[in-house]
């Protein structure tokens, strides 16, 4: 059996998730033994129009992006959305908190007309996505798991329980008990509570769990005297494009 051809692509992003690949060290050579990387612009000059697996980083933010991702989808047998910008819109989604004309004016002044921009969309709002690797940046062990599944043709199920589950296993003192609010209770696990392990809070970069137990959350907020505004403010950092889903549901009635 020939090795599957894998291509890396990037849209609006910081390219940090691709860099996580280079950070595998010598283990990268083991991975490269199983796949044939045919395109990876950040570190390779080789180009190919033929590939089986597309690993795509970044969000869709221009009409040109929309056409490009559709082409990639049409070519690839398997499409992996890689990193928060691709899976939920991520930090790019903060743009959607503003009027687009206004933010263009603010950043580019009289040259704003040269920059065409559309609201930030995660990939699955435009094309079908087969695998999601959440996180800002992606958590390497999860990426390896997803890659294995993709190569074996198995499905990968993203954990749908809160970051708190992993956080407890790591024996961290709960941020709420320190008097600090945290997005852990409503955010998908899978990162091994990376940020809280290092003394920071969870910012919700992996997206929300499908059932955030709204009433329970309200009780926690009340108990710790945390305003809903705080939660909304943090939600609008990585998860603003979730509103595209809400709008869609409204249209469906």
């Amino acid at each position, binding site marked *: 059996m020939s090795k599957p051809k894998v291509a890396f692509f990037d849209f609006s992003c910081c390219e*940090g998730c691709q860099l996580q690949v280079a950070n595998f060290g010598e283990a990268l050579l083991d991975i490269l033994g199983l796949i044939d990387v045919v395109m990876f612009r950040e570190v390779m000059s080789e180009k190919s129009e033929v590939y089986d697996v597309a690993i795509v980083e970044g969000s869709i933010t221009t009409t040109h992006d929309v056409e490009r991702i559709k082409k990639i989808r049409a070519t690839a047998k398997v499409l992996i959305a890689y990193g928060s910008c691709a899976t939920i819109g991520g930090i790019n989604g903060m743009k959607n908190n*503003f009027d687009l004309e206004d933010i263009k004016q603010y950043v580019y002044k009289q040259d704003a007309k040269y920059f065409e921009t559309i609201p930030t969309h995660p990939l699955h709002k435009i094309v079908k996505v087969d695998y999601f690797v959440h996180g800002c*940046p992606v958590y390497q062990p999860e990426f390896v798991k997803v890659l294995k599944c993709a190569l074996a043709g198995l499905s990968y199920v993203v954990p749908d329980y809160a970051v708190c589950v992993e956080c407890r296993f790591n024996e961290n003192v709960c941020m709420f008990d320190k008097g600090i609010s945290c997005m852990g209770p409503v955010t998908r696990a899978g990162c091994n509570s990376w940020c809280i392990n290092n003394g920071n809070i969870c910012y919700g970069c992996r997206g929300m769990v499908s059932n955030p137990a709204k009433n329970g959350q309200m009780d926690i907020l009340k108990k710790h005297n945390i305003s809903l505004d705080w939660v909304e403010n943090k939600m609008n950092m990585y998860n603003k494009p979730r509103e595209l889903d809400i709008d869609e549901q409204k249209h469906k009635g």
Partner: protein
Amino acid sequence: MSKNIKVNVEYLTRVEGHGNIVVNVKDGKLEECRLDIIESPRFFEGMLRGRSIFEAQHITSRICGICACGHTLASIQAAEDALGFIPSEQTIKLRKLLLHLENLDSHILHIYLLVAPDILGVKSFVPLIQTHNVVVRRALRMKKACNDACDILVGRHVHPISCIVGGFTKLPREKELNRMLEILNGLRPDMEATVELAKTFAFPQFSRETEYVGLVNDHGEFPMLSGEIGSTDGLRLNKKDYLKLTNEFVVSHSSAKFTKASRQSYAVGALARFNLNCDKLHPQAKELAKVLGMKPIVDNPYLNTVAQLIECVHSLEESIEILQEFKTKGVDCSQEIVVGLNEKGTIPVKAGNGVGAVEVPRGILFHNYEIDNKGKIVNANCIIPTGQNLNNIELDMAALVPQILDKSQEEITLLMEMLVRAYDPCISCSAHFLNVKFVGR
């Protein structure tokens, strides 16, 4: 000579971000020479408005995955400047260590994975896995070592977790100091091998008189995190006056924004730092410069890669010294801060305007925030090293092309690509901001 040459490199590879090179020579005359930026804008400065100053680091780190720690440190410095907060000596020292680790990490990536393939005549590091396996393994091992040390210090390199306004949410204990020392000491033999390899590299001969800009100071320390803005033309400015350096201006024939200081353009980065401060490098780095024949002022832009190599030795040795000092004196872990959101009001908030100026891998980086009396960001501005270099790159290209017209189209294309790559441009960084050049859009 009546030669027609058209170079059009779409999606320049082995750089960070998206750019095109366009060169057009008609009847032996250079008609057009540009580096187009085609990265989609991300509007970071606009998105920061209304956000708490304590969130700025988390957000602006995401401007760039390669220099995430550099953005973090410039952002924190600007925020603390605006708040009037003075970090402890220990905090500053640990931040310096972080900056060294990132410099090392970024330079190694550039030297091995982005530049070496051109020198060795291949398209990427992938064919080198077969032909130069030892070299590829060493590169990946070194990259991982820097990354592992960063993981210990700040949680991870790509978007550091524990380094925030006020200090660190997690400080290294003795065990962690030992581990970092072990990793960095372990890097030394690989660094020696890197130096030996780099000695065999032949870089293209080309030079153009250039104004080099970077941080300078009046004492013996190699300036990375503090100092004033200085240049090889004798410019000297307080960091608060950074706009007088960058002088963004629009020219009538295009909508491009240019930066210039004392002359038409200026350059920042490892070569600029070498030209300004080589006498302040670590003795081992100075020794290496001597061996490699690097003497200021070096104005061959291709040698930026050599300046990066010299800096690698400097950063590695200084990192080891900082860690050894902490091992002797110990880390005061009572300085650990709870979290960056200041919900407990540990750092008093007032209205202000702050500037951060930090030497990140690709040159001097500025962050500037204006905040109101509640600590909300009213205005934000970030000026990225690559943005400052774009004008200089184009002028280099324009000076180089007439010198190499006798070469084949392929050779010319490669030399142009190598020139742009030598600057180690971080296009995804520079394209988010006002000082983006977009000739030809």
